[in-house]
């Protein structure tokens, strides 16, 4: 009986120790912190209420009639709503198109380069791309007669968030493309041959064979992409620092500012706990969906 426990325990113990001391215990402590005041008295949900009432987190009076800041939660949700369909859709289209293209390997590597780049550099590139003098995109908008978009996007509240979201699409598409490419290679050729015999055209084949066969891959891509969008930090840190005037602030960066600049550990803990609650919803959804498919 003892032997049954001891051998596997020896294999797992080092990993368990590291995970407990570097992930689980500190995470539990953060939850704990979020329920207390600076003086050490129990605060209930007071920290959370304060964070949610703060216009830095939620500023619904401005949304959507006025320009950002709309609050970090709104920014994270908008990020997800724009970035998710764009990267998933574009990744799928590219994977399908690249199946039969000259130099597909080279093209895939180019598109995947964004995923290899440190995101802190990704932020620099986004800022460069949208810079009034050095950047290509504002120059293009000036040339086609849209001077309003011909200035530094990251320097104005109307455009800062949008610049970051579009830039993050450019950086992240390689992920969904590579996973979809792998998924496509597992679909048996005979399915398409049989469909051709039955008279299905290319679009019908895509809709009735390709898309359903890629459902498990899509689940993985959607889960990982939403997690990435919720945790977004580095890009914002180098491109805008959440500015101007909080117009591109996101939850992860807000937590960092509260904790390490303002030294408000309990408020920071409440923001972190809120963010983790959101990511765990995605995590649980992912576990349940993949189990149901097995």
């Amino acid at each position, binding site marked *: 009986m003892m032997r*049954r*426990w001891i051998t596997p325990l*020896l*294999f*797992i113990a*080092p*990993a368990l120790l*590291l*995970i407990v*001391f*570097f*992930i689980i215990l*500190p*995470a539990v*402590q*953060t939850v704990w*912190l979020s329920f207390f005041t600076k003086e050490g008295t129990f605060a209930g949900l007071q920290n959370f209420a304060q964070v949610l009432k703060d216009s830095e987190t939620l500023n619904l009076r401005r949304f959507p009639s006025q320009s950002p800041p709309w609050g970090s939660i709104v920014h994270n949700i908008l990020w997800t709503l724009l970035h998710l369909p764009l990267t998933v859709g574009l990744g799928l289209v*590219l994977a399908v*198109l690249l199946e*039969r*293209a000259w130099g597909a390997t080279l*093209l895939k*590597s180019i*598109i*995947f*380069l964004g995923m*290899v*780049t*440190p995101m*802190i550099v990704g932020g*620099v590139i986004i800022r*460069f*791309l949208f810079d009034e*003098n050095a950047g*290509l995109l504002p*120059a293009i908008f000036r040339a086609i007669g849209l001077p309003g978009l011909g200035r530094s996007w990251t320097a104005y509240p109307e455009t800062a968030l949008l610049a970051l979201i579009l830039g993050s699409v*450019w950086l992240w598409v390689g*992920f969904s493309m*590579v*996973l979809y490419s792998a*998924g496509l290679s597992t679909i048996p050729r005979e399915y398409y041959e049989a469909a051709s015999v039955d008279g299905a055209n290319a679009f019908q084949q895509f809709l009735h064979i390709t898309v359903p066969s890629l459902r498990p891959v899509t689940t*993985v891509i959607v889960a*990982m992409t939403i997690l990435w969008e919720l*945790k977004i*930090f580095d890009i914002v*840190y180098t491109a805008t620092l959440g500015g101007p005037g909080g117009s591109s602030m996101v939850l992860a960066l807000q937590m*960092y500012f509260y*904790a*390490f600049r303002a030294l408000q*550990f309990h408020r920071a803990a409440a923001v*972190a*706990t809120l*963010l*983790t609650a959101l*990511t*765990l919803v*995605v*995590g*649980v959804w992912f*576990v349940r969906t993949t189990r149901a498919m097995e």
Partner: protein
Amino acid sequence: MRRIPSHRLVHHVVVWTVGLIWIVPFLGILMSALRPQSELVHGWWRLSPLTLSLENFARAWNHPTAPVGEGIRNSLFMVIPATILPLLVSSLAAYGLLRFHFPLRGPLSLLIVLLLAIPQQMVAVPLFRFLRDLGLINTYTGLILAHSAWALPWMTMFLRNYFATLPLEVEEAASIDGANSLQIFTRIVLPSSLPGLASAAALQLTWAWNDFFLALILIYDPAKLVATQRIPLLRGQYHIDWGVLTAASILTMAIPVLVFALLQRSYIRGLIGWTLK
């Protein structure tokens, strides 16, 4: 000569245009890094006059307040142990989770998946205090341990799936010959898993190198800052020296790009392997 149907030609033109659009931002920072600031005021895409020099790279490498050269040395010094340690620990754990039946095995595997969802901000303050109390704050030991712990969930999942593809009969035969579990693991499982270990190493090496947040909260001595931490310091508040900033960016991304270029197949297989079964 074989004729190419026109719709196939359109197809190739479309994908190559997309590829071109995707590389333009990288081309932009490369041009900016290779040319003097005076040539960039009207856009890096204007090619006359064209003066190419490595001066910006030298300025970034030896920058007075945040020398990137020092950062790259620090990053190299840090990522190698931050790759080897989790590889050892997670391969042990993956084998333990796969080959032994014990209570709580199911919930433990589930927990590992959920850990993937947690953002690092969730541990930032307590982890800082914990490492400070141990005297490991502002040390690479602390940072390496943190990187190792955060790599364990995905690495264990990936290696467990990889070990599951190995033939069980070889291990059973060794067991009959009297080898114990640890011997089977080190002499049979690890040597036959080299491609899987290479994939995990390629991913972890780039991810630990690319990390910013853990370094940001755990390392603060100016001389100890890793490469990614120095990029924001070169940004400047009002005036941006694009030459230095883009040269530093290229220097910092060179290592992960090199790892990807050399280990491309392992890298992609790793990415697919830990996300898809």
